[in-house]
């Protein structure tokens, strides 16, 4: 298996990268951990490849009080090590294998938009956004709900470059969790759920959202705040919550799992992830134990 031939471009800075993309179109190569397998298997045959690995200015990770901005060349391992966002950390542990994470990029995974990938769900549940740049024009920020258009399809237009992604920090008293089931560790999940729960001062659920993977063309976001009925997690009607999440999904069957099994799985995982997230939120909200 060898990739089909292509014309190779290796811009040295962002301006040159945008100019090249505007001139020849072509596919952007960052970590290549999804693109190169597709080339090797000849599922893709772009005429031009624009390799952004030399654009050092894109290998950034900025943590601010309102959120974390991940540059287009920040690798999974680099982002996980920085420990800048709890949910990103939880999700990155589930992305492929450590060696793949040394090379793969967070923004690349978002642009690849695999409906079973973890990071699109993280962006979706947090309500984050992706910043797109184009030669000679201003940048535009696309919110997660508009960014994922379909399976393997994002809102990036030909000639545009996704330069960064913004993952908002949740308000105080919040917790997150990511649960998934895969045939083998490191494989794409049959189904998965990431959850974000915020508790109020009385530790009642003030907001609860999930994003589900593997059960729709794009990450399926379900807000189950209403179903949680502002109760403490221990008395929430989890059957009702599970039903609401399942109703939002449109799982399909394939060689790995039937649609019915995926539907079952997403319900079980949603309950587990939401309970985990609520527990983490309660720990965050609890007064820290006296030390010394």
């Amino acid at each position, binding site marked *: 298996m060898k990739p089909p031939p292509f014309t190779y471009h290796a811009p040295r800075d962002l301006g040159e990268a945008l100019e090249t993309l505007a001139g020849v179109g072509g596919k952007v190569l960052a970590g290549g951990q999804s693109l190169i397998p597709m080339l*090797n298997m000849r599922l893709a045959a772009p005429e031009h490849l624009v390799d952004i690995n030399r654009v050092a200015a894109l290998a950034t990770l900025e943590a601010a009080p309102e959120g974390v901005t991940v540059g287009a060349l920040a690798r999974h391992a680099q982002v996980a090590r920085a420990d800048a966002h709890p949910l990103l950390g939880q999700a990155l542990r589930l992305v*492929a294998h450590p*060696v793949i994470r040394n*090379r793969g990029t967070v923004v690349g995974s978002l642009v690849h938009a695999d409906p079973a990938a973890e990071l699109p769900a993280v962006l979706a549940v947090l309500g984050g956004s992706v910043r797109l740049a184009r030669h000679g024009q201003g940048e535009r920020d696309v919110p997660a709900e508009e960014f994922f258009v379909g399976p393997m399809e994002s809102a990036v237009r030909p000639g545009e470059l996704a330069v960064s992604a913004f993952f908002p920090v949740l308000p105080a008293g919040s917790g997150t969790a990511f649960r998934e089931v895969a045939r083998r560790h*490191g494989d794409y999940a049959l189904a998965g759920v990431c959850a974000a729960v915020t508790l109020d001062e009385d530790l009642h659920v003030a907001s609860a959202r999930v994003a589900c993977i593997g059960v729709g063309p794009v990450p399926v976001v379900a807000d189950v705040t209403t179903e949680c009925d502002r109760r403490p997690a221990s008395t929430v009607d989890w059957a009702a919550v599970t039903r609401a999440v399942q109703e939002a999904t449109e799982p399909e069957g394939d060689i790995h799992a039937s649609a019915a099994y995926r539907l079952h799985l997403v319900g079980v995982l949603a309950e587990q992830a939401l309970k985990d997230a609520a527990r983490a939120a309660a720990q965050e909200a609890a007064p820290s134990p006296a030390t010394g």
Partner: protein
Amino acid sequence: MEHEITLVVNGTARRARVPARRLLSDCLRHDLGLTGTHVGCEHGVCGCCTVLLDGEPVRSCLTFAVTVDGQEITTVEGLAGPEGPSPVQRAFGECHALQCGFCTPGFLCTVTALLRENPAPTDEEVLEGISGNLCRCTGYQNIAKAVHRAAELLAEEGQ
């Protein structure tokens, strides 16, 4: 169109003329004659082609040689020191952590980096660390043992 590239492989600068689509795995094996790096699945699943890029393990079948022009690469051929096999290599021998040997170069590179980052991994960390490498002889028990043994050898030898 061919590209002139220089890779620092196992400490030696090596030049090659390669088409852009040349995978690093093929560049090492065919252009540079370093056939220790094995090629299994060629889509990043099996881990046989794992090499160290600037010290970090990566899949050489999922990396273009042109992309890493100028960077440092360590292959299985570069793991041994002047004294002979590295502690990781010796531990694999001692613990019978190789049968047919096809997956071994990938495991050795992965484990060398793993122990550099985490000199005393737990059982769980070992399994997570080698989870991206497949052994079709299914000799995982001995491979996991060898990782712990290599950690011991490295600690004893103060490396």
